[in-house]
């Protein structure tokens, strides 16, 4: 029986990169919000572990009230319990403050064997929260996990993909892993569970529910970094050359891409 916590986040479905110049925060108003696609893979990993080895899958999210929607989506995929860390004190958090808040929330609920994060979010895109969270929790972490090979009550064997090489890593619990998006194809939300999810409670965790209640450790106040500017990459049309001949396009594209093709050698090592 493995107790798993999955961190999920609600993110904009797309963004023009518009930023509030006063706060340095992304403008999310008016944008459709979705469950971070990389977190779907994390959740799918957890659900498959539960299906094969038993246990429970809880989800944690930090965000405003409407972030409840992603927890309900997680319920519709099969998550057991969901916790929303919410409150104005948590707003505007960077990696440091976000990971700390999540660590406080997770610790307040249970001692989990496994914590699973996605590779990164599509909005912040730092991919740093998973490692920072593990540090706050004082547990080891393994990033770039591309597969679960074997699992027992005491140990887990993972595939880790680094720089074109494949490693097999064996670790004990408690452990945090950050999974690659392609690890598993996430299941679709189930209709029966989606209907039930509307009535299933989402537990709210506020500052007063956490062990550390000092506001200065959370949100914008607890952040070590400030975003100065967000802007979409500028297109440099002077370097572009249109390919006009459809017939020759494939050959021309292949020639252009050849220098960038990485030859992948999968080399397996077992590290314990």
């Amino acid at each position, binding site marked *: 029986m493995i107790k798993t916590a999955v961190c999920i986040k609600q993110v904009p*479905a797309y963004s023009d990169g518009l930023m509030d110049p006063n706060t340095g925060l992304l403008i999310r108003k*008016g944008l*459709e919000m*979705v469950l971070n*696609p990389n977190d779907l893979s994390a959740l799918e990993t957890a659900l498959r572990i539960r299906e094969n080895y038993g246990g429970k899958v809880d989800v944690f999210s930090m965000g405003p009230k409407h972030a409840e929607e992603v927890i309900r989506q997680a319920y*519709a995929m099969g998550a057991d319990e969901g916790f929303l860390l919410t409150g104005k004190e948590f707003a505007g958090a960077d990696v440091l403050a976000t990971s700390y808040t999540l660590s406080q929330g997770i610790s307040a609920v249970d001692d989990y064997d496994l914590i699973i994060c996605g590779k990164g979010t599509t909005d912040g895109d730092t991919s740093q929260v998973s490692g920072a969270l593990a540090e706050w929790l004082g547990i080891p972490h393994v990033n770039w996990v591309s597969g679960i090979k074997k699992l027992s009550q005491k140990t887990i064997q993972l595939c880790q993909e680094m720089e074109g090489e494949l490693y097999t890593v064996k670790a004990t619990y408690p452990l945090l892993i950050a999974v690659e998006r392609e690890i598993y*194809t*996430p*299941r*679709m*939300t*189930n*209709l*029966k569970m*989606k*209907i039930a999810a*509307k009535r299933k409670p989402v537990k709210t965790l506020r500052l007063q529910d956490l062990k550390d209640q000092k506001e200065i450790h959370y949100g914008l106040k607890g952040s070590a970094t400030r975003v100065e500017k967000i802007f979409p990459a500028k297109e440099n049309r002077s370097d572009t050359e249109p390919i*006009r*001949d*459809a*017939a020759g396009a494939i050959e021309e594209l292949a020639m252009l891409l050849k220098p960038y093709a990485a030859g992948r050698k999968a080399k397996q090592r077992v590290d314990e």
Partner: protein
Amino acid sequence: MESDKIIAMEDQYRDYLSDESGMTGTAGSISFPESEDELRSIFLTMKQGGTPVTIQGGRTGIVGGAVPDGGHIINMSRLNKLHKLEFTDSGAALLEADPGITRLELTEGIQKLKGGHALFWPPDPTEPSASLGGIIASGAQGISTGLYGRTEEHIEAVRIMDSEGNFRTVQRDDTDFGAVYFGSEGRYGIITKVRLRLRKKPDSMWGIAFFFEQKADSYQFADMLKEKFGTGKNSSPKSVDAEIHASIAVCEYIDRVSIDLVEERKPYMTKIRSIPDIDSEAAAMIYTEIHGSDEEAVSEIAEELLEISVSCGSDPDKAWAVSGETEIDKMRSFRHAVPESINLLMEKRRKRLPGLLKQGSDMSFPQMGFKELLNLYEKDLQDQQEMQESGLQWTIFGHIRENHLHINFLPETQEQYDLGNELIMSWAERCRKVSGAVIYEHGMGKIRKPLFVNTADSPVLEEMRQRKQKYDPTGLLNKGNSLDD
């Protein structure tokens, strides 16, 4: 004279000699006008030389409507801007758009307009690169007419350049709109601008896929759904602007052959790559969407559908349900991948045998149960000895509430192709006898011309010829479409 805009046909433009039907035509020159003035100048140049012109949009049509039959091609793809979005005193949202804009560009463009993020244009023929002009010219309808009504109900006006090079605006209520310009495949004039009627996006949208291990169970589900929720024609809101509390917007049938074709192509299709494989036991899939302003009411309809599906043998643990635009878009992309995958398969087969054009039906049989309709098709497809001996493959997908199914044949030989055509003709005659629509949304183009001519009443054909004589007496516009004049 816009002689510098008129380009002699060269190898690099050979793609413009075809459309999605697989048919290839001929043309001596091509142009890409970027304004009405350029269009007029090019057309009058051609008219002076007696050169027929074929008007093209996105070339996504499947009946050869955009395939040139000699002469000059005028490709409208560079007339692709959005113009004014205005809100009338009555609260209507009207958007002026160029005809060359694609369905996808239109959807994305509306979001970027001031006040546009809460609006959408309901007609959805599923092909994202279909041009607005092409949608109007072919009379395309799409998958949500059952709730939102027909495409023409969402068009306020069209601006037309006639065969003299003069421009005029035709309102939707004008007789000419429906009788002359909508669905007429460019035979009577060239669309240069369109005024669209947008609507407020539904606050809540659910997309639900049900799977059935027996096809017969899916037919029963379809009939029960139609009985409970109507066919849409009576339940559509009276006004295009009326709020929708909660209603079924989409109801599509997809058979196993189509599912397999999509899954084979899925790894190469970005939008649907993340959709998991469908259980191999599923013989058919029915995809529905529920739209409305009331999330609770939408959820209640979903529950009712779930109950009906269970009573028809569908496993409730396997039904998918998504919500929100992004996820709904993914499911619609899956649905659109069906004809796309068929087209790609046939393109491959055409390399061996060029005459194997897109071969599918576009008929709507009214006043008939869904099960009854499928049994009718299957009797011909499965039970006939000739079909069994020929080895001709086929697949069925389409719109349940309109009894509007696309039977697509997948021939590998000329004999199989000919057999498919015979069957389509026999169904067309049967459809006509029960006052069904033989050609519902794809247009006649050049490929379905024989089907149309052989099943339409003589007065209808004569009226079309007279109309051609009136609006395009020199016969230069889109020669060969619909019927030979």
